[in-house]
C-alpha cells in the first residue's frame, strides 16, 4: 500500500512536470482580422454670450457703437469727406524780374556810386491782392550782366520788407558780366504796395564801381532776379477767389456690406455735416447732391433731398489766426428723405459738394496760415430703433474639414441660442467647393435657430426675458463625402425683427445672445488601418 501511494505521488509529480510544457493554443498574429474601434467623441465648440458689440465686430470693427444714458445703442459712422490745408489750396508760383539800363562810364580811378529803382510785380492768380507774405522757404537768385571793366559791389534792398528781422538786403559782388549770387528766403517778410499795381515790391539797387584807372568803356547794366520755390508761412490781404474741389467723397456704411436683400427701417436716422474752418476767408459751398447708393445686388440709389439741406451754404470763418470756426447742419426724416434713402440698405452715401472762396469779392481782408485747414466731416447716426424685414446677410469663409473623413461615421451638431434681441433668425451654413458650388447644407431641412425675444411696450420697447432654442443636425452617410470636398462655407442669415418686422423695436446695450455650439462624432477605425 505504501508503495502504491508512493507511486501515485510520483505520477502526480511527473504529470506536473509534463504539463509544464503544455501549449494549449497557438496564435498566428499575422492572421489577425481587422478589429473595429468605434469611439464616440463629444465636445463643446463654442460658448459665447454675445453683445451687440460682438455681433457687429465682424463687420464694423472700425465703427462706433454709442450708448446713451438709457443704455440705448446708436451706430455712428463718421468720415472726413473733405480736408485741405491752405498751402495746398493756395500755391505761390516762382516769380522773376529783369531790367536793363544804360551805363555810360569812362576811365575811373577810385570808387564811383550810382542807383537804380525798379518794381517787382508778383504774378498771383485768382485776383489776389497780398498785403504781406511771410515765407518759410524759397531762394532768391540775383545776377548782373554788363560790359563794365571794373569790379563793382551791388546792394539790393526791398524797402519795408525784412529778412530774418533785418531790412531786406542782398549784396552781389560784380567781377564781370554774369556775376550772380543767391540768398535763402526762409524767414523773409515781403510787404507789398498795392497802391498802383497789385502785389508790387519796390526794389532798389545801389552800384559801387571800384575804378583802377585802366581803360573802360561801359555802355549798359542788366539786373535779373528770380524767386524760386516759394512757400508761405502766412498770407494776409485779399486771397482771391478759388474753387474748392470737394466732390466724390463718400460715407461707407459697412453694416450693409454683407447684406443681400431685405429692408431695414431706421426710425430716427440722422446725417450731420460739420465744417471746421481754419482759413480766415469767406467760403460759400453748394451741395450739388447727396445720394445713398446700394452697390450689392440689386443695385439701387436714392438722392437725398429736403429742406434741411442749405443751398448755398456760407461757411463761418475765423477772425483771428489759430482759431477754427464751425458750421453745421443735419438731416433727419423731418427735413429730408434720409430715412427713405437708408431703407435701401446702402453701402455708401455720396456727397457732391462744390465751394468757392470770397464769393462777394474783395470786401474783407483774408488771412491764412500754411497749416490752417478746412475739413468737412459727415456723421451718420443710426439709433437702433426701427424694424427689419427679410434682411439677409451672407459671408464666406475658407475652411477644410480634411481630405479624408472615411473614419467619420456621422457628426452631430447641436446649436443652442438664448436670445434677448428682438430678432428672429434663420441661419444656414452651405458647404461649397472651391468654385462656390454648393455641395451640402448644414441644416437640412432648414430650421429657425434664433427666436425673437418679445419687446415691451412703447416708447422703450425693452425686452425683459430671452428666448431659447435648440437646433441639432446629424450629417452622416454619403453627406460626409460632401464635407471632404468642402473648401468654403457660406453662412447665410435671414433676419426679421419681432413679429415679422412689423413692430418697432429698440436695441439696448445689455441685450445678449448666448450661443452654444456642440458637436458629437461617431468615429470608426479598423485595426488594419493603424499600420
Amino acid at each position, binding site marked *: 500500500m505504501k508503495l502504491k501511494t508512493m507511486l501515485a505521488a510520483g505520477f502526480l509529480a511527473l504529470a*506536473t512536470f509534463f504539463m509544464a510544457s503544455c501549449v494549449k493554443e*497557438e496564435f498566428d498574429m499575422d492572421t489577425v482580422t481587422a478589429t473595429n474601434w468605434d469611439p*464616440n467623441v463629444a465636445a463643446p465648440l463654442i460658448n459665447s454670450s454675445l453683445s451687440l458689440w460682438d455681433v457687429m465686430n465682424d463687420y464694423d470693427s472700425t465703427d462706433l457703437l454709442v450708448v446713451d444714458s438709457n443704455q440705448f445703442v446708436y451706430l455712428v459712422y463718421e468720415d472726413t469727406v473733405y480736408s485741405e490745408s491752405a498751402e495746398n489750396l493756395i500755391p505761390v508760383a516762382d516769380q522773376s524780374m529783369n531790367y536793363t539800363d544804360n551805363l555810360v562810364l569812362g576811365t575811373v580811378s577810385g570808387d564811383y556810386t550810382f542807383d537804380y529803382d525798379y518794381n517787382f510785380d508778383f504774378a498771383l492768380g485768382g485776383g489776389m491782392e497780398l498785403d504781406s507774405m511771410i515765407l518759410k522757404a524759397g531762394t532768391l537768385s540775383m545776377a548782373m550782366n554788363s560790359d563794365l571793366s571794373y569790379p563793382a559791389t551791388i546792394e539790393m534792398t526791398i524797402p519795408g520788407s525784412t529778412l530774418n528781422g533785418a531790412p531786406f538786403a542782398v549784396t552781389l559782388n560784380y567781377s564781370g558780366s554774369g556775376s550772380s549770387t543767391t540768398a535763402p528766403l526762409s524767414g523773409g517778410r515781403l510787404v507789398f504796395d498795392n497802391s498802383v499795381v497789385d502785389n508790387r515790391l519796390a526794389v532798389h539797387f545801389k552800384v559801387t564801381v571800384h575804378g583802377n584807372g585802366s581803360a573802360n568803356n561801359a555802355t549798359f547794366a542788366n539786373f535779373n532776379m528770380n524767386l524760386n520755390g516759394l512757400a508761405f508761412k502766412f498770407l494776409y490781404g485779399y486771397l482771391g477767389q478759388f474753387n474748392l474741389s470737394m466732390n466724390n467723397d463718400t460715407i461707407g456704411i459697412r453694416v450693409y456690406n454683407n447684406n443681400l436683400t431685405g429692408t431695414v427701417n431706421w426710425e430716427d436716422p440722422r446725417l450731420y455735416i460739420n465744417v471746421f474752418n481754419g482759413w480766415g476767408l469767406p467760403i460759400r459751398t453748394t451741395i450739388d447732391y447727396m445720394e445713398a447708393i446700394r452697390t450689392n445686388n440689386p443695385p439701387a440709389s436714392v438722392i437725398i433731398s429736403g429742406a434741411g439741406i442749405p443751398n448755398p451754404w456760407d461757411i463761418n470763418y475765423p477772425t483771428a489766426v489759430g482759431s477754427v470756426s464751425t458750421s453745421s447742419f443735419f438731416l433727419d426724416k423731418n427735413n429730408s428723405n434720409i430715412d427713405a434713402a437708408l431703407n435701401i440698405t446702402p453701402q455708401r452715401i455720396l456727397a457732391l459738394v462744390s465751394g468757392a472762396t470770397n464769393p462777394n469779392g474783395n470786401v474783407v481782408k483774408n488771412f491764412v496760415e500754411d497749416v490752417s485747414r478746412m475739413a468737412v466731416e459727415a456723421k451718420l447716426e443710426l439709433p437702433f430703433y426701427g424694424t427689419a424685414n427679410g434682411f439677409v446677410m451672407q459671408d464666406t469663409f475658407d475652411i477644410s474639414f480634411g481630405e479624408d473623413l472615411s473614419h467619420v461615421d456621422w457628426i452631430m451638431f447641436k446649436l443652442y441660442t438664448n436670445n434677448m434681441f428682438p430678432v428672429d433668425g434663420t441661419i444656414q451654413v452651405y458647404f461649397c467647393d472651391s468654385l462656390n458650388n454648393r455641395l451640402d447644407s448644414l441644416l437640412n431641412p432648414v430650421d429657425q435657430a434664433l427666436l425673437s425675444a418679445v419687446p415691451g411696450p412703447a416708447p422703450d420697447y425693452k425686452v425683459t426675458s430671452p428666448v431659447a432654442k435648440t437646433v441639432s443636425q446629424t450629417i452622416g452617410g454619403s453627406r460626409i463625402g460632401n464635407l471632404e470636398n468642402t473648401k468654403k462655407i457660406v453662412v447665410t442669415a435671414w433676419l426679421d425683427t419681432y413679429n415679422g418686422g412689423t413692430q418697432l423695436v429698440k436695441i439696448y446695450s445689455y441685450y445678449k445672445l448666448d450661443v452654444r455650439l456642440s458637436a458629437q462624432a461617431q468615429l470608426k477605425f479598423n485595426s488594419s488601418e493603424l499600420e
Partner: protein
Amino acid sequence: MKKTIITFLVFVSGIAGALQLNAQNDMIIQGMRIIPQSYYSNPAFIPQCRWHIGMPMLSSFYIGGGHNGFNAKNVISVNALDSVELDIESMIGSLKNHNYVSFEMNEELLSFGFKIKDKHYINFAATERAFARISYPKDLIEFAFYGNGALLDQTLDIGNFRVSENHYREFAFGYSYVYDKTWTFGARAKILFGMSNVNTRRTDVTLHTESEFFDITATSDILVNSNEIDNMTDTSEDYEFDAGRYIGLTSNMGLGFDFGATYKFDDKITFALSVLDLGYISWKSNPMNLTSKNSDGSFTYDGVDISEFMEMGADSFMQNLADTLIDIFEVDTTYDKYRTSLNTRIHASAFYKVTQKDHISALLRMHFYDRKVHPSFSLAYMRKFGDIWHVTGTYSITNRNYANFGIGWSLKLGPAQFYILTDNIFGPLIWNRYTWLEEKEDEFGATYFETQKLTIPRNWKYMNFHFGMNFVFGCKPPKDLVPILE
C-alpha cells in the same frame, strides 16, 4: 501597429498576470503544520515539530503575483476562419472598476522556534519583505475605447492609478500559549524598518461629459508619498544610489502585530481566527510628497468664447487657457514625513480531520487595502505519508478567478525539511503561444523575415511559489497534543 497593440495586450495580460493580486502569503501553507512557517498565517498555530531552525537565507522564499483584470484568453481568440480575433469588448467586460496588478517577494533571513513544555511556543524570524501593487481603472480603458461621447453623464475615474510599493525588514517575536484543551492563543510583535516606499494616497482624476452641451469637467486631487526614491526627481548626473546606506536604513521604524486563536470544537473539528499585520511604518528618511496645490481643482471646458478669442487672438487665448489649467492642476512637491499602514488580513479557517492521515480545511481570507475588503477563499486536502512526506492540494477562489488549483509538499529527510508550495499549479503550466513575422535587416541591409514568438500562461491571474529548507526536530507528535491537527 496592430501587432504592437496585440503584443501589448498579451504582455499586459500575461506579464501582469505573473504578479499577484494581494500582498499576501500563500493560502496553502496554513494546513501544513509540519512546515514551521505555517505559524505565520496564525500565531496560534503551534508547529508540529518541537524545534526548528531555518536554513539561513533559504528557510522561506516566497514570490507571487497576480492580476485581477483580463487574461490573454479574454482578448485574443481564433475564429471559425482560423483567423485571430481581438476582442476589446470582452477585455473590458472582464475588468472591474479597479483592477490590480501586484507582486510580492519575501525572503526569510533567519528563523527559529521551539516549544516549552508543550504549553508555550517561542518563535523568531527576520524577514525581508517587498511588495508592489498598481491599480488601474476600468473607466480609462472604456474612455479610450468607447470615447467620451458614449459615456455621457458618467463621471469617469480615469486617473485612479494607485501605486503601492513597500520594502521593509521585519523582526518578529512570536509567542503561543496553549490555554487549555480547547483554546490556544498566539501573538507576534514585529519591529519594522522601512527601506523604500511609494504610496499613492489619492489620485482622483475624473472626467465628466454632460449630455446637453457636452461640457467636459475634469477634476484632479493627487497625493503621492514616497521615500528613498530620490531618482524620481533627481535627474542630476552626479546622483549615485548609495546601496550600503539603503540596506542599513533604520530611520523608518514601524510596529506590527499578529494575533491568533484556535478553538478545538471536538476531536475532528477545529476553528481558527487570526488578525495579521496590524501596524504601521513611519517614513522619515528622505521623504517626498507630490500633492495637488489645489485639492479641489476642477476645470470645465464648455467651448470657446468667440468674443474673448477674437479680442485676445489665438496665441494669447491658448496661453491663457494653459495658464488656467496649470493654476488648477499644478502639483506641488513637499518633503514631509508620513506614515503608512500595513495591509491587514483576517484569516478565518476550519479544519476537519477525516482520518489520522487525511485532513481537509477551509480558509476565508479578508485582505484590507484601498479602503476595501478583498476576500479570498480556499479549500484544502492534505495527505500525510508518514512524517516524511506531506502533500496538499487546494482549490481557491481569488483574484476574481475561480480556477486556481494549488499543490504543495514537504519532504523530511532526517532533520532536513524541504518544502515547495503553490496556490495555482495549472495557471503557469498551460500556455498560449503567439507567433508573427517581423521584418529585419541583415548586416548588408537586405531585409528578411524572422518568426517571433511569445509564449505566456493562458490563464495566469494568480500565481505564487513558496519554498524553503528547515532543520526540524521532535516532529513526531505525542498523542495528546493540542490542538488536534496532529
